[in-house]
């Protein structure tokens, strides 16, 4: 395919893995596979635009996950503001929609670093070391932010609501 030949060096080879990561985190946040695909494609397009800088970096997966999660969170916010319930309902149950909206709301209230760590670790599926590389912080810092972020989410969402519940259906 011509578009494949236009891709910068290494992008084609890394595309599948990176797109899969981006898609999964977007799907977990959005619940909608179509929108998640669009969000993942947008995240990959941004990776393509910055490929010269991130291609050889060990944190490139974390970078893509972070971009995808931010795009997904923004999409949820836009839809909730616009009242686009129909799009939010696509392919998911009402309860899941409510849970996701509550999760996004709780995530948005977290400090930026805690939100990034929680999303990358639990929704993006990155290891603590990968999160540390992506965020350019130490692993201990990632653990601290993760612990505080989860504690805040539990207090905000209630003790019965666990992160595993949100991502279980993906």
């Amino acid at each position, binding site marked *: *395919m*011509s*578009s*494949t030949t*236009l*891709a910068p060096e290494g992008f*084609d080879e890394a*595309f*599948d893995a990176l*797109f*899969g990561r981006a*898609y*999964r985190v977007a*799907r977990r946040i959005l619940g909608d*596979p179509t929108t998640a*695909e669009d969000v993942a*494609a*947008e995240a*990959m*397009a*941004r*990776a*393509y*635009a910055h*490929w010269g800088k991130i291609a050889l970096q060990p944190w490139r997966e974390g970078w893509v996950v972070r971009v995808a999660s931010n795009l997904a969170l923004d999409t949820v916010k836009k839809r909730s503001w616009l009242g686009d319930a129909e799009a939010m309902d696509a392919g998911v149950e009402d309860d899941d929609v409510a849970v996701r909206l509550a999760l996004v709301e709780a995530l948005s209230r977290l400090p930026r670093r805690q939100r990034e760590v929680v999303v990358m670790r639990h929704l993006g599926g990155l290891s603590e070391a990968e999160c540390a590389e992506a965020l350019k912080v130490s692993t201990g810092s990632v653990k601290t932010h993760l612990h505080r972020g989860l504690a805040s989410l539990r207090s905000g969402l209630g003790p019965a609501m666990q992160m595993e519940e949100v991502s279980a259906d993906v």
Partner: protein
Amino acid sequence: MSDQWPTDTPRDEVLARVVARGTRIRTMHRVMRMAAVLAVAGTSVAGVGYVISSVGDQGDPAVQELAVGPVQPDVPLTDSADPGGSTSATVPGDAAPGSTPGLNPPAYGSDSTPSGLPRTSAASSTTGRAPSTTSRPRSPATTPSTTSPVTTATSAPPTTEPLAGNTVPPTPAPAVGTLRVKADGVSVGANVCSNETRSEAAVSVDAATDVKLETISGDSSREVAMQKSVDGDWTADLSSAVTDPAHPLLVTVVATGPGGVTRSSAALPVVDCTP
């Protein structure tokens, strides 16, 4: 890897979409970067241009000082003229070649070298007086033969050099001539008759719109407006000006015109004109 592909959309189709979108993002970034560079460069050029234009408007301070410096002391330092009134004493020989005296070019034109650079002799800048030998390299053909360069230099200072930077020749200040005193229509020279009741002062004033006469006799002073007579002189009644015959009558002619105000004072002896 196709078996791990997570979406229903074919991989190559998604990749093509990503490449197209990524190329647009990259192009947008380049355009924005270029616009930022151009904006910075444009701002810099505009700033430099503004600075240059500002300096250009002020002129070269060194050149102005050298051009103006020699001219100022050439203003006649008489008590009869205030600034601006000196240019009325135009010396024909000082006109630049090919120009009329009233339309002299700025000092740059007459005090510049053929290359256009102003003459900046150390003597002229340190003494503050224009070197007459270098400031008048006039062509003999354009200098009126009736005007002697030596006479011009001694009797009338070279006041025709316009100030540097002035593009419009300054309006000449009123020029006050010699005050004359008449008694019963007969000139008595510069004396005032102590017992004359019909004496008047007359003076010729050029470029004046209003002339006043201030007199001081002893402890009393007065001011009267002078009238322009048919013969062109400005006259004022002096009949009651002398209140103290023991002292000279101090007379000041104040001439006001478009070019400024000129004051000319004189002390007139008071004499007994009784036959």
